């Protein structure tokens, strides 16, 4: 690992991870994920075929209501990744979307740390410029469709860290 990589969240992705990373931004405040054209399953982690029906007719679609329940969560006090080690403690959760898939997510500040809490999931770019998921409070963090609270903006900025690449910083700003 080079010194510059050490100051970023993990960059490496598999060919499937690149499919997730390449998903377009949500146009309607939802969440874009690969979806099976054959059986309609939303697919995460990404693949280029559908685990439910093995079809290959997949396309990235926007799930308008990317909401679900917090299945569990943890507060990390240790990490093997230097970027996170410098920012501990760090909260991670597992959200079961009403639409199907289980999503490992960063937990936004406004989301209640309670199993069963209702959450909205959105995709943001982290400090490495990689697409990651954040679960936020349905009401407090996302007041209107596509709108974001100041607290969420603060979290996204923190998750984005001090991005070295100005283009990445710009991208995050453009999304707000």
């Amino acid at each position, binding site marked *: 690992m080079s010194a510059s990589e050490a100051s970023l969240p993990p960059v490496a992705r598999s060919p499937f991870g690149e499919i997730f990373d390449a998903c377009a931004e949500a146009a309607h405040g939802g969440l874009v994920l690969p979806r099976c054209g054959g059986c309609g399953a939303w697919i995460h982690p990404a693949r280029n075929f559908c685990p439910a029906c093995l079809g290959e007719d997949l396309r990235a679609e926007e799930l308008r209501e990317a909401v679900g329940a917090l299945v569990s969560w943890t507060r990390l006090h240790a*990490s093997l990744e230097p970027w996170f080690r410098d920012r501990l403690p760090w909260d991670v959760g597992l959200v079961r979307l009403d639409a199907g898939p289980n999503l490992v997510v960063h937990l936004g500040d406004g989301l209640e740390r309670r199993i069963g809490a209702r959450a909205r999931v959105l995709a943001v770019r982290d400090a490495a410029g990689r697409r990651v998921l954040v679960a936020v409070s349905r009401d407090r963090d996302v007041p209107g469709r596509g709108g974001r609270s100041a607290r969420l903006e603060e979290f996204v900025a923190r998750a984005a860290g001090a991005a070295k690449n100005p283009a990445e910083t710009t991208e995050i700003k453009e999304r707000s």
Partner: protein
Amino acid sequence: MTERALRPFDGVAVCAPITVPYVRHAPGLPAQTWLARALRALVEASGVSHREIDGLAVASFGLAADAPAAIVSHLGLDLSWFSYLPHGGACGVVALRRAARAVETGEARIVACIAGDGHERGAFRDLVADFTWSFQDAVWPYGAAGPNAIFAMITRAYMQTHGVDRAAFGRLAVQQRRHAMDNPLALLRDPLDLDDYLATRPIAEPLHLFDCVMPCAGAEGFLVMREDTAQRLGVRRARALAAVERHGAFASDPVQLRGGWEIEAERLFAAAGRGCRDVDLLQTYDDYPVISFLQMEGLGLAERGGAAALVESGATAIDGRLPHNTCGGQLSCGQAGAAGGFLGMVEAVRQLIGRPLGRAASPATTALVSGYGMIDYDRGLCTAAAILERVEKEAGA
């Protein structure tokens, strides 16, 4: 159920349980070295010559950096049967199950089952960062402390679902530490009480330090052959009765609070001709205490949510009715990569032939060994379980 009835093993012996002593860090020693040491230990323990071994079942995370099949030439073997086991913590049971079928059918005569890995500083990160594509893509970027974040979430969900607190897991860790204190090969042998357990630093809440295994280097092994072969060779043996595997079960559960054991337990016991109450020795895969609980419940030794009470009752202590992880388990011995998947099997065979490393769980006659392996995204994929029994003294014993 009839169409899924399982045929038990027919006269299959498990012999020569060996452990290549674990060390915390072993710079410059790759997995192949540990596997070679395991094979040599098997030869020394059994008197079977290297050349007589015609089957190999091998598990190691380190072999992928070479080519797994290259281990055959590294070990100087000439085989009629070769199986590479990518099942992580289920590999010990899987090795036994497949090797048993191989010796039953004559595909091999003597199968060496070995698992081992090296451990250098920083190696654990390299192993887990791209453990699977799904893990690399969709867990690792969230800061996950190795697999800790996922198991922390399973643990929290279990606690809430069944209304137990951290002490429930602590009692298991404390009990296993007592067992380890009698095992000279365990890396963690300092006394541990519940207060110590509860007071350690958090790693990934609700997991604290002693919920997590310590990565290390080492290897484990055993031989599988027909019982008449074992008698002829004069090696002590335990008898393998039946074994099952299940991979990918309950994939749509929101969180993994049960595993493939629930589906397979009934026909496992039926094939072995034994019931839960016959089991007087239990070895589970304890990468985290909650996973041992899931095995106890999935195999019917405790009702759903009842593992905490089973442990608290003292039943699973060395002098209880169901001694569990009698060498201390991975929580106290350390986790030598894939060897962790063999630890319970090797200890069960040791107890059944009356040569434990630590205290004897007496009289252990019927052992249940279970495995769990390969965290992929938010859950483990591989589960397995086997039943073995003591062979009463007779010719060859």
